[in-house]
């Protein structure tokens, strides 16, 4: 045997071995019911209308699929019912190519007619406009069976993200529905991986796979690998956590205090968690229409007085990180402007330094005029402010207690006030507060965050602040950045606008960022695997995530691990 032949044989056998190894890896086990928990969960009702304000869990982004899922981690598009999108040259139209060969769960074919029908339905019944499409879409045109063009009423370069989240409805079912707004859709027809509802009652929701699902893995196997998803009702966080610790659930989105010593310690090999701080930044909102909170020096002193590390370590159990002064969290990492960070550093923002904070107040004239031990306004009016926080939200309440101690340490008469949720929300929206903790929004670009906090058009004529505009910040400069950002598709221009926006945010301090919101996510590897892990965080893992659609990406990857887990009913 020549050496050449031997070499060829060796190479061939290695290749063959390699192939057999990879094909063994491709043999992904199928079946099984994955058990899900999201913490406290109200009893289920059968409302499988994705355009209902509060449909049954798993209706959106698993039963009904969007055109495109933009991954919250990294921002890459994952094409579902569309396979591509292009803006027209004037940015006034957006064309989607739709996926061919998709069947509705009842076997009918999906095509452009369904998309056109759904948008026209939303136009006819504005109660369905859950995405806010009518604010920028005029009409939709069918180009051919698998191409649709949305005609925009104004240039809006985030249109592809919002329209990407649009859920087409089956025309053959919905065209006979008299009032789609009040339609509960108890027997849904959809295109997603889970469409077959096998239980929905006061104790459990169970949805099983769509036999007609179009999705295939690289080896050509039909997705999803799992048979069913079952979500038990837990009426409180404690029973939900106890079930998780007990190993009864596989895919979890609960807040768990002291998680290392409870959940993880119960089964260190299989119980894991990763709290990606990709949620909206939690901030301290100040009512910028009232003195002394209208004074930027006062707000600057507040920002310098807070012990951020203790807030994060004690209030938030170390589950997140301190925010940076631009307010942008890890979800917008690539957008953060170094110039803005430098400016913030030179102002001392976001760094705990009581002495420096006190000095700022002294210099601005906030001294103790009446000798009661607390600082007063320069005109002598006492400063007394309760910091509001929702009753019962223990992590936030502890955080606010630490913030209030920080304020008291620099001579400010602050206290903690814990109204009930509805009352608290009303206080913030109507401006009957001085200082309060609150959430904000987060999106694929920083626009969503700044829009939620700063867009003065979200404040109604009656003075009700929508979104997170509770601080009542009204500025032509920041409003201008928000409009300019969505009027251009040029990334360099968009970056420049957002750099300016960040600079405006740190120099004006319209709100004081505390920490990016952690996203609760735990998983149990003993029966199912393929979940996002800390090392391979391919998307946000929380099972409740249905804004971006990350949940769909997870659903299509997880699979059972052995005969028991694959065969369980």
């Amino acid at each position, binding site marked *: 045997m020549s050496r050449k032949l031997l070499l060829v044989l060796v190479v061939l056998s290695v290749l063959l071995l390699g192939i057999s190894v990879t094909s063994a890896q491709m043999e992904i086990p199928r079946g099984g019911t994955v058990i899900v928990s999201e913490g406290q969960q*109200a*009893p289920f*009702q*059968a*409302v499988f209308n994705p355009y*209902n*304000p*509060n449909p049954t869990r798993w209706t959106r982004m698993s039963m009904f699929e969007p055109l495109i899922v933009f991954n919250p981690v990294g921002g890459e598009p994952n094409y579902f019912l569309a396979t591509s999108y292009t803006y027209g040259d004037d940015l006034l139209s957006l064309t989607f190519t739709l996926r061919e060969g998709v069947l509705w769960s009842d076997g009918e074919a999906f095509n452009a007619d369904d998309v056109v029908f759904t948008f026209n339905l939303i136009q006819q*019944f*504005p*109660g*369905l*406009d*859950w*995405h*806010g499409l*009518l*604010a920028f879409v005029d009409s939709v045109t069918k180009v051919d069976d698998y191409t649709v063009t949305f005609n925009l009423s104004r240039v809006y370069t985030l249109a592809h993200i*919002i329209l990407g989240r649009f859920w087409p409805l089956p025309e053959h079912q919905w065209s006979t529905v008299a009032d789609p*707004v*009040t*339609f*509960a859709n108890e027997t849904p027809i959809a295109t997603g991986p889970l469409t077959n509802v096998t*239980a929905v*009652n*006061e*104790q*459990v929701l169970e949805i099983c796979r769509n036999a007609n699902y179009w999705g295939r893995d690289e080896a050509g196997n039909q997705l999803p690998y799992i048979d069913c998803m*079952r979500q*038990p*009702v*837990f*009426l*409180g966080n*404690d*029973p*939900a956590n*106890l*079930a998780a610790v*007990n190993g009864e659930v596989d895919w979890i989105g609960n807040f768990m205090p002291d998680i290392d010593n409870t959940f993880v310690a119960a089964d260190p090999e299989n119980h894991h968690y990763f709290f990606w701080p990709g949620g*909206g930044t939690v901030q301290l909102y100040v009512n910028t229409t009232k003195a002394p909170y209208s004074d930027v020096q006062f707000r600057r002193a507040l920002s310098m007085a807070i012990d951020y590390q203790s807030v994060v370590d004690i209030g938030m159990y170390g589950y997140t990180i301190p925010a940076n002064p631009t307010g942008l969290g890890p979800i917008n990492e690539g957008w953060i402007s170094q110039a803005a960070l430098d400016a913030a550093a030179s102002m001392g923002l976001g760094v705990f330094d009581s002495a420096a904070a006190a000095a700022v107040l002294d210099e601005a004239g906030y001294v103790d005029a009446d000798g009661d031990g607390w600082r007063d306004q320069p005109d002598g009016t006492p400063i007394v402010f309760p910091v509001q926080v929702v009753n019962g939200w223990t992590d936030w309440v502890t955080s606010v207690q630490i913030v209030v101690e920080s304020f008291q340490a620099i001579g400010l008469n602050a206290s903690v006030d814990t109204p009930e*949720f*509805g*009352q608290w*929300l*009303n206080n913030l*929206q109507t401006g009957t507060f001085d200082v309060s903790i609150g*959430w*904000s*929004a*987060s999106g694929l670009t920083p626009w969503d965050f700044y*829009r*939620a906090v700063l*867009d003065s058009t*979200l404040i109604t004529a009656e003075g009700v602040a*929508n*979104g*997170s505009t509770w601080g009542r910040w009204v500025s032509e400069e920041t409003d201008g950045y928000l409009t300019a950002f969505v009027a251009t598709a040029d990334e360099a221009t968009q970056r420049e606008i957002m750099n300016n926006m960040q600079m405006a945010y740190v120099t004006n301090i319209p709100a004081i960022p505390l920490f990016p919101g952690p996203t609760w996510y735990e998983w149990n590897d003993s029966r199912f695997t393929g979940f996002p892990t800390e090392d391979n965080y391919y998307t946000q893992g929380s099972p409740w995530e249905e*804004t971006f659609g990350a949940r769909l990406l997870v659903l299509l990857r997880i699979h059972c691990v052995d005969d028991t887990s694959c065969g369980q*009913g």
Partner: protein
Amino acid sequence: MRFLARRLVFYLVALLVAIVLNFLIPRLMVGDPVQLIIARFQGRIEPSAVDAIKATFGFVQGPLHEQFFTYLSNLLQGNFGPSVMNYPVQVSQVLGASIGWTLRLVGTATILSFLIGTLLGIVAAWRRGSFVDGYVLPFLSVLGAFPYFWFALMVVYVFAFNLRWFPMSHASDISLRPDWTSWPYVSSVIEHAVLPLMTILITSVGGWMLGMRNNMIGVLSQDYIVMAQAKGLAERRVMLTYAARNAILPALTGFAMSLGFVIGGALVIEIVFSYPGVGFTLLQAVGARDYPLMQAIFLLITLAVLVANFLADVAYVLLDPRAR
């Protein structure tokens, strides 16, 4: 009969007042349902969706007098309208899912607790200083004074989580399809009811026992008891038909009240055991300012309390000749 007729008129007036208050009180709370629906998403929805939600929920935002007339006409038709937080599901359907569990669990627990507590109270008073009087009574009273939430959590932790004698949560095995004709399902319902039932029983029996014992002691000092004993009646007969029959009268009103409140559910038990019921539904409805759902539950509680009180009045008439 005049007594009962007078009571009936009184209850009708009480019902009318309750219907009006039932409409007004929820609406005095600050906050409106539409904003709360949006807020529950904590910034995860597009702010323009507010228009869509307002278009859907116009019916909870109309002028107060219009809402009141809708409410009245709904009531007359026995229809509470759609629930806000479960829109468009009807209130009757939302309640239908939980009310059965509540009536079975809390109803059984209340009746058992009253029966056991009263019997123990009779025994404790009759045999003063005995084991039942000296040890069981103080022990049950102490248990009854425990923080309810903590006690229920401990019960779950010890008997379900550590010892695994009973399931931790739910009212039945959730992998079984609800079917009251199948034994595996029914037995799982019974198995799941044991811990919550025992928790309610243990924490509530002490109150009934103490009340009955004290009533009995008052009655036992009456002349007619001495008279009955002097006539040589059997101990049991004196204890039950002479003493207990009179001592139970005040307890009956309390029992009627608690029977009426059964329909309100047992919130803490429901949360700790994830046991479906009206209590949690009401908590949620209040949090979401779901006026139609709240009204329905409050009205049912009012009705149940009134009916139970009327039945107690009837029982009074039967037990106590002086009321006739």
